[in-house]
């Protein structure tokens, strides 16, 4: 069967039911179901949630009687600021995925670069955020117990064991689990995009 025969089959068929203008217009009011659009919506939600939480926390800081608790609350507030910076950066990176107006090859190259940059950022933030959480937990524990009692409790083997577990857990979470999780979430997609690009490039390099 020649290409002309295939064209004949293809072009002489009613392949679709045309949409009315009203239906098309309604589509513009819909929300994108793309992974990127959903990720962006989630990050926006987290950002608004963090800002609201931060404002509430800021209000209560002034009513805390104990100064050690106030320090702890301020530290939590600082971590909220870090989170806000993190979410803004994430939204900016996600925005880069939009606008697929280039040719297919250029679009694939751009997507791969952007996805790699996004994963690098995600991974780095994991490795920074989890140890920061550990530090924050320790500071909160000191704030609650007082430095002297905290140092006393370090003489008990159970506390040391618990702290060791906490350190191991947060480091494992930050490095290996973070890497595994990101690979599972986006790895297959990245591999698929690379394979598609290779397929397109193969033809041009073998010319």
């Amino acid at each position, binding site marked *: 069967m020649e290409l002309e025969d295939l*064209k004949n089959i*293809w072009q002489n068929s009613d*392949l*679709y039911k*045309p*949409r009315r203008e009203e239906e098309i217009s309604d589509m513009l009011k819909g929300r994108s179901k793309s992974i990127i659009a959903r990720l962006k919506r989630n990050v926006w939600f987290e950002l608004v949630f963090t800002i609201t939480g931060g404002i509430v926390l800021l209000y209560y800081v002034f009513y805390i009687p104990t100064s050690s608790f106030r320090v702890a609350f301020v530290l939590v507030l600082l971590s909220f600021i870090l989170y806000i910076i993190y979410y803004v950066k994430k939204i900016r990176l996600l925005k880069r995925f939009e606008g697929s107006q280039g040719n297919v*090859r250029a679009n694939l190259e751009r997507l791969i670069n952007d996805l790699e940059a996004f994963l690098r950022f995600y991974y780095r933030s994991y490795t920074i955020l989890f140890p920061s959480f550990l530090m924050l937990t320790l500071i909160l524990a000191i704030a609650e117990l007082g430095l002297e009692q905290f140092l006393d409790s370090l003489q008990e083997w159970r506390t040391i064991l618990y702290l060791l577990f906490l350190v191991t857990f947060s480091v494992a979470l930050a490095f290996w689990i973070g890497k595994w999780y990101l690979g599972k979430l986006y790895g297959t997609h990245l591999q698929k995009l690379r394979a598609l690009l290779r397929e397109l490039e193969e*033809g041009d390099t073998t010319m």
Partner: protein
Amino acid sequence: MTPEEKKFVQLVNQHQGLIHKVALMYEADPEARNDLFQEIVLQLWKAFPTFRGESKITTWMYRIALNTAISGLRKKNRKPPTEDIHDGHLNISEVHDTDHEENLQRLQWAIRQLSEIDRAMILMALEEVPYEEIAETMGITQNNVRVRMNRIRERLRKLMKA
């Protein structure tokens, strides 16, 4: 509806066949195809303000539609593409010619066996898009298009006979 929206809707309406056919190439499941159609329309709408008419409107539409379909940055299929020739999910209201219907279903099945890149190229070839424009849309040389098209044609011929 704003004048811009009206202009856009008219444009999509005029060229909706192109979007339907891209969706048909990449999604076997009608619901997933419907989602892809809508996703392409949304992506076109987002890009519409930046369209300056430097390329043909159909080239611009093919680029966005194919990028949306190929990059796959959308919800996964509810149902994987089927291997069954008789599950082509045609939107044909009335098909009088049984042979023609069978050939069309076979062609659709054969096309779905191709890679996502090859599907994009055969779609444009079936729609009589010149090789120069296919090369421009895909970002490869015209020579590469020619070589690939020969290979795709050969593969389709075998699949159609199978």
